């Protein structure tokens, strides 16, 4: 199964492919993000209820969506690493986790900045913000566990197990926080879900979501290449690459 994936398990082949992908994805994601934010900031009508503060949606919603998406991707890499003992998938976890943590941080930060004008306080124990906060703890847990070991291999494998355990717990945490929220506070004043939007507002949001996805791809390529170099430091092709980089700089 997945025989066509085999060459990418070899680090050197994967390294070259990732470099190629990164050169394409990085500029593309920047362009798409710029397009989406400028369109969303300047060229869409204000929301009749929230005025212009709703424009924060163009950063908050993609970050919130992709914080879950990144965790899912990390869990897939962890599952592949544990079940098929694919080394490159093990290294991907350490590469992806910080990106997910930053996305979650952005979602929390923009959620608070958006909540201030609406609810008057920076932090509200709203169901979505609370599960976003717990997701941040899960990401930080994976990162902390990965760096806690002297031996890099053990750290990667331990992080893989925690990522898989985390992804099993994610829906449970999400729905129990959702249930907890309705129990203690009743429905929050304004449903925090995406307000029903007419197309003119929807397009920039979709572009921003695509932009965040492309950026995630580009950053993963960059970070995974570093991880490959670190793990294969003793290989001759890495030594040669290091010399090339050194000469390129002189």
């Amino acid at each position, binding site marked *: 199964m997945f025989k066509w994936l085999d060459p990418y398990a070899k680090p050197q082949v994967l390294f070259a492919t990732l470099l190629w992908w990164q050169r394409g994805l990085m500029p593309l994601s920047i362009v798409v993000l710029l397009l989406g934010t400028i369109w969303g900031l300047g060229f869409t009508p204000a929301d009749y209820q929230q005025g212009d503060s709703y424009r924060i949606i163009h950063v908050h919603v993609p970050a919130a969506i992709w914080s879950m998406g990144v965790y899912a991707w990390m869990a897939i890499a962890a599952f592949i690493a544990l079940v098929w003992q694919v080394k490159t998938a093990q290294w991907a976890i350490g590469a992806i986790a910080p990106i997910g943590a*930053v996305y979650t941080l952005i979602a929390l*930060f923009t959620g608070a900045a958006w909540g201030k004008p609406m609810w008057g306080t920076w932090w509200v124990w709203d169901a979505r913000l609370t599960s976003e906060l717990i997701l941040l703890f899960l990401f930080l847990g994976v990162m902390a566990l990965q760096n806690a070991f002297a031996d890099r291999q053990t750290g990667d494998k331990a992080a893989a197990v925690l990522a898989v355990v985390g992804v099993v717990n994610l829906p449970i945490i999400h729905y129990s926080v959702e249930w907890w929220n309705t129990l203690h506070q009743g429905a929050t004043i304004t449903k925090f879900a995406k307000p029903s939007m007419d197309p003119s507002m929807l397009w920039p949001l979709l572009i921003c979501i695509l932009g965040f996805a492309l950026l995630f791809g580009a950053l993963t390529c960059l*970070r995974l290449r570093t991880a490959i170099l670190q793990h294969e430091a003793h290989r001759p092709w890495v030594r040669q690459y290091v010399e090339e980089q050194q000469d390129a700089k002189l």
Partner: protein
Amino acid sequence: MPSFNFTSFSDFLAMGGYGFFVWLSFGGSIGALLALGWYSKRQQQQFIQQQSGRAAREARVRQQQDREQV
């Protein structure tokens, strides 16, 4: 392309009174993403510096060993 929603640039900055929050969240997010990208790039460069340092150290050790054999 839909028309520009604000009359003037200063109006655009004010963002209907919510300028502080909107620009805070956009600035913060872009700042965080830039920091992540820069940090990852720096991590790679740091590794390359380390490795070339190591290669130089190994060369020195080998020279030392060759000198001893002679």
